[in-house]
């Protein structure tokens, strides 16, 4: 609701008012929520003092849903209905999911994104993630004592558009206002850079539970500039567990395990991996449900050998990111290690050898992303003070393009372009009298469409019949500051315009999101009490005052008719606020937002123009 809250760009809008904003690290294995309290970033804990929330959700047949430690403990007992590592399925079709055969879930292949069949019916990964996010939101609200203004949610830098969109939808379903999707390594760099007042080129090596990112950043006074990013959206600590799991089965000469044993073995594999970060060997002894006994010892060296390929797999993207940044390993001043999987000594050794220096591990690799996200959330919510004023310039990880003749990809926006960005390209018809054109949007680096990820297909209709090659169809790509793409197409050749906007979809329709939202609200009944009335009145008054101040300052941007329309809405708002009807006040507030939208945009434009002009004068 509009920019009427704006004072001047860069200035805090209401210094006295601290907005409750959080950073959320929605991880494959664990999730965290953090905030900035009295200028200090803190990770918020649950009522037992635990910071990490296991990213595990259990669905009971009676409609109850349990998230976190209790769900994690039930994994072996109720494997089908207890969903772990759901992040691996976000924005993914069944064909994209690795190791399906060794997962205990019942998958349903839905268009675009898999579903998991549980005692509560088929669950989309978006819904499962939303349940995790809702738990974190409730934790934060209980801890901070009020509703949140907004949240910064982190995503792997190498997430593609479908995965980002799925994450944003999950936040919406969980009732969170997303201030920004922030790349995990960038969040870590913020936490690290501000903590150490660093300058120069840094690499962030982020090996999480299910994803690997490498980002190369340039830190200069007050600016975090991402030069290049690369990674593997399906490589992480889980894969190391999987190697140990396979080894356990081989070494113990047991047949394919049942569901419960499978989960037990996985948990044991994970435990062994974790123990080997501190010890040279680990003993694994357990009895399976069929009576088979497992009694083996795994040494650190044997573990390093069996997972060497996985570690090497992280070095190819690392080389690629450096090459894209035009740098060699020696030019990197520090390597920040992020993600629980970077605790493994052989991972640290490999990274150290590659960069020719000891990696930095002085920040808790589990918490650094959430902390960085909290710091950024605090800034975006408008709580910043002048000395905390910095800028973050991030990039898109994968090239965006269109399908052209012969199944080839024409790149429109190359990878590692600074966002926000927009690019347009003109195409033409190839048949006489052609009145429609299919537009297929893809993401990836490969030449052939079949090797890239399909993001969206739509058709531009209503092209006037012309000879082949005469129509001029301009396709515009726009990537916003969240790294999300929207595409529009328009026929330019004649005066006639046909235009369509698409948000790339991964199979989750808007109606589906609406249904999930409604169900979410049914879980937590909206508070329509006296408090809500008081809050809406305060909001109405605040917006009324801000609008009047804006009219006094920049009323010249409106013609008399526009001015009269806004004045009328202001009168309605004042009337509504004087009465007792909360929804009516909310409606009047929304009406004010709508009727001042254009005014807000013009003010913003003037304000940025002035700021930029001010910069020009300064530099002369």
């Amino acid at each position: 609701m509009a920019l009427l809250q704006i004072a001047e760009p860069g200035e805090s809008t209401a210094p006295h008012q601290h907005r409750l904003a959080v950073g959320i690290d929605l991880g494959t294995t664990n999730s965290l929520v953090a905030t900035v309290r009295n200028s200090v970033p803190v990770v918020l804990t649950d009522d037992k003092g635990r910071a990490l929330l296991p990213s595990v959700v259990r669905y009971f047949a009676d409609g109850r849903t349990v998230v976190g430690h209790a769900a994690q403990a039930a994994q072996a007992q109720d494997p089908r209905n207890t969903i772990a590592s759901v992040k691996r399925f976000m924005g993914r079709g069944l064909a994209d999911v690795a190791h399906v055969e060794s997962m205990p879930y019942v998958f349903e292949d839905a268009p675009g994104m898999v579903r998991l069949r549980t005692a509560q019916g088929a669950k989309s990964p978006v819904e499962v993630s939303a349940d995790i996010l809702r738990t974190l939101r409730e934790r934060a609200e209980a801890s901070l004592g009020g509703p949140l203004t907004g949240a910064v949610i982190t995503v792997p830098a190498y997430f593609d558009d479908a995965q980002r969109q799925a994450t944003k939808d999950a936040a919406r379903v969980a009732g969170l206002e997303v201030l920004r999707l922030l790349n995990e390594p960038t969040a870590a760099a913020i936490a690290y850079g501000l903590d150490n007042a660093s300058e120069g080129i840094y690499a962030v090596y982020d090996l999480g539970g299910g994803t690997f990112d490498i980002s190369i950043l340039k830190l200069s006074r007050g600016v975090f500039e991402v030069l290049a990013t690369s990674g593997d959206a399906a490589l992480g600590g889980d894969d190391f567990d999987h190697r140990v799991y396979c080894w356990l089965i081989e070494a113990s000469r047991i047949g394919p395990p049942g569901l419960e044993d499978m989960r037990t073995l996985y948990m044991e594999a994970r435990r062994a991996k974790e123990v080997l970060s501190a010890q040279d060997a680990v003993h694994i002894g357990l009895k399976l449900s069929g009576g088979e006994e497992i009694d083996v010892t795994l040494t650190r060296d044997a573990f390093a050998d069996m997972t060497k390929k996985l570690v090497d797999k992280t070095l190819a993207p690392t080389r690629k990111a450096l090459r894209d940044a035009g740098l060699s390993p020696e030019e990197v001043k520090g390597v920040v290690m992020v993600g629980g999987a970077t605790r493994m000594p052989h991972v640290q050794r490999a990274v150290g050898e590659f960069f020719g220096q000891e990696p930095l591990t002085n920040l808790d690799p589990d918490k650094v992303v959430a902390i960085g996200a909290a710091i950024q959330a605090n800034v975006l919510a408008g709580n910043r003070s002048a000395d905390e004023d910095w800028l973050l310039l991030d990039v898109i990880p994968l090239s965006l393009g269109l399908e052209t003749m012969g199944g080839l990809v024409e790149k429109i926006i190359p990878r590692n372009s600074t966002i926000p960005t927009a690019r347009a390209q003109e195409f033409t018809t190839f048949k006489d009298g052609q009145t429609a054109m299919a537009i297929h949007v893809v993401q990836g680096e490969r030449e052939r469409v079949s090797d890239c990820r399909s993001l969206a297909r739509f058709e531009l209709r209503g092209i006037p019949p012309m000879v082949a090659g005469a129509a001029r169809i301009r396709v515009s790509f726009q990537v916003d500051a969240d790294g999300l793409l929207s595409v529009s197409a328009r026929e330019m050749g004649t005066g006639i315009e046909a235009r369509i906007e698409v948000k790339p979809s991964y199979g989750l329709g808007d109606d589906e999101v609406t249904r999930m939202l409604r169900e979410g609200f049914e879980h937590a009944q909206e508070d329509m009490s006296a408090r809500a009335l008081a809050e809406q009145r305060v909001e109405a008054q605040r917006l009324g005052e801000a609008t009047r101040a804006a009219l006094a300052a920049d009323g010249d941007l409106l013609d008399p008719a526009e001015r009269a329309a806004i004045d009328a809405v202001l009168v309605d708002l004042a009337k509504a606020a004087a009465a007792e009807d909360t929804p009516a006040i909310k409606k009047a507030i929304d009406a004010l937002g709508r009727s001042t939208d254009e005014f807000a945009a013009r003010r913003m434009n003037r304000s940025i123009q002035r700021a930029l002009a001010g910069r020009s004068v300064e530099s002369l």
Partner: protein
Amino acid sequence: MNLQSNDFELFGLAQQFAQDRSVLDARWKELQREAHPDKFAAQGAAAQRVAMQWSVRINEAYQRLKDPLKRAAYLCELNGVPVNAENNTAMPAEFLMQQMEWREALDEARDARDVDALDALARNLRQARRDAETLLARQLDVDHDKAAAAATVRRMMFIAKLGEDLAEAHETLEN
């Protein structure tokens, strides 16, 4: 200043080929500091929309200004001499011979998986780029011969494409 200002006006720089990269980088960050959507994240959709337009425009200008080839092509265009690469494929025979030699060298090095040969070719291309940039600086800033500069830009585009293919070959060999 408005969204239609040219790149040089937007960045407050002299409209010429010679540019100091460190000044350009600093200007880019200064301008983004004022216009980036993050500065207005809590201020609603209208503010985000306008900030995004400006931020996109600043990034677009920066991309064009920092790349010598794009900057030269842009200067030609601003001066009414568009490069028109599609319709102007005539090149000096000597230049075309050189291109063919380099293409062959690239193919051979790729087939032989010879990283040293790729590196050598990369050095040659870098030198060719540097020479072309020196030439462009004279043509654009001293002689003000836009037509000659446009011809140089067209030649540089060949070299740039070869450079891309070379980078791709490097990548394939590494993986």
